């Protein structure tokens, strides 16, 4: 059963198509990779789904606990509240805050963050904060960065920052995770670690859609690959089928994988 269906998604920037009639499905509890050359429209597609851009036309049907809903024109914070978490290519941590604060901000309950709760509902706030703290500590341990919890996030290395941004998305405990190049620029050991984390998340019933350039990584962990080129879907299917498709090799890989 699909958790997300993109239907004929179109987005132009000044007349130039960035996403040009894209349709595909993301099955529940699977890992899907969105692959394609630079400028193919992958991040634009993410931005439409997560409410940072509005499409010119098309729909994105999200299955939120059994109720299907077009989310393509919802604003970003509303999409997040439906259970869709995303990470960014350029990480976007709250740089001048601690790692722990970054994670504690990723909370599904919002009552404790209201101004009125601060004044009138201190019990509710302290109870919610305890849950927040436990969850933040749990996911920090999950990504193996417990010892960094009180560091300012701007003082972490690139790989650590990537891991914190993943942990922050996990903290929202979403149904669907959209990860924009989760392994870009990290060391091979960290890449393997991230691959392991994604597999664990799938094991926990999460659905993951991620953008990635490293084909070895994609083949290793994705259940399905969607190849984009110039805003359109070129192919989709199981990794081993897709990467040996001559059209794909020509458009994106340039040469055969050994």
């Amino acid at each position: 059963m699909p958790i997300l269906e993109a239907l004929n998604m179109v987005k132009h920037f000044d007349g130039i198509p960035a996403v040009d009639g894209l349709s595909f499905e993301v099955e529940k509890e699977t890992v899907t990779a969105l692959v394609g050359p630079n400028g193919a429209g992958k991040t634009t597609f993410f931005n439409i789904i997560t409410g940072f851009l509005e499409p010119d036309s098309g729909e994105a049907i999200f299955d939120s606990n059994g109720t299907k809903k077009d989310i393509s024109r919802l604003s970003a914070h509303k999409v997040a509240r439906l259970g869709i978490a995303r990470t960014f290519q350029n990480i976007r941590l709250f740089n001048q805050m601690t790692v722990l604060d970054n994670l504690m901000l990723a909370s599904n309950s919002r009552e404790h963050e209201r101004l009125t709760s601060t004044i009138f509902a201190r019990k509710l706030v302290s109870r919610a904060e305890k849950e927040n703290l436990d969850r933040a500590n749990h996911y920090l341990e999950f990504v193996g960065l417990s010892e960094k919890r009180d560091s300012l996030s701007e003082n972490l290395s690139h790989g650590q920052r990537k891991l914190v941004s993943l942990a922050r998305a996990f903290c929202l405990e979403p149904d669907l995770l959209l990860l924009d190049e989760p392994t870009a620029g990290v060391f091979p050991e960290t890449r393997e670690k991230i691959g392991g984390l994604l597999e664990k998340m799938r094991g926990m019933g999460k659905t993951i859609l991620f953008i990635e350039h490293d084909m070895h990584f994609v083949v290793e962990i994705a259940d399905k690959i969607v190849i984009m080129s110039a805003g359109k879907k070129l192919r989709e299917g199981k990794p081993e089928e897709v990467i040996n498709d001559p059209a794909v090799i020509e458009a994106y890989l340039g040469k055969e994988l050994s």
Partner: protein
Amino acid sequence: MEYFLHICIIAGIYYILTLSLNLVVGYTGLPSIGHAAFYCMGAYTSALLALRFGISPWIGLPAGAIMAGFLGLIIGLPTLRLKGDFLAIATFGLGVIIYQIALNWVSFTRGPMGLPGIPGYSIFGWELDALWAYLILVIALSVITYLVIKRVVKSPFGRVLRAVRDDETAAKALGKNTVNYKLLAFIIGAFFAGIAGNLYAHYITFIDPSSFTVMESVAILLMVILGGMASLKGSLVGAVVLVFVPEILRFMGLPSSIAAQVRQMSYGLILVGLMLLRPQGLFGKYRFK
């Protein structure tokens, strides 16, 4: 001694202004150069209520603060969708507009003639005309302002404000309605600036638009930056230093015609020096990016 108490009262009023602006600029990252507009609103609301309707400053205090907060809401709704420099320019424009209204709506505000004879505070018929008594009132309200703002910034609500400051896009992706948070921070800041305006009006007993120029907003912003962004302790230091330092200039034997200019110049020098040497201010926990 009288003189010293007077300076302390002024410093206390500026402490409230600095705290309230720090919430907006330091904690929420909204560059506002129009804070004097809310200060003005609080002062004129309370002064006009007292002069026209004989309403006690104790009523004028919340009334002025609420009017200032309301002004914050009206101004914030359209402008808070702007980012960075654009917001700074928009709030600058707001400062000019409020100043011009106070100056030109002569039938209501008496324009440049100002409002003389504003009554002072009294408790059970006992007038707070002794300076030390007024200082106690100012200190009490400063402490309340400090405690409220501290509670706000230390709460999960305040954590969202800092998140909006650091990266609004990421905050949205975590489900925060960032425009609401910015608006609330702006309104709280305006509310407390309104309290400072009330204290000023009923202390000096005379107000005119020249107390609420854009230069005034810049001075308050300078206190925030000097003391340190996102530091409540810094706000105290910033306000006290910038109120006391120009007073010291008085004792250096400068003729009064030059002293005012030297004061303005010292503000400029402090700002340039800070940006070069310590852009986060003395106790700052946050830097401009």
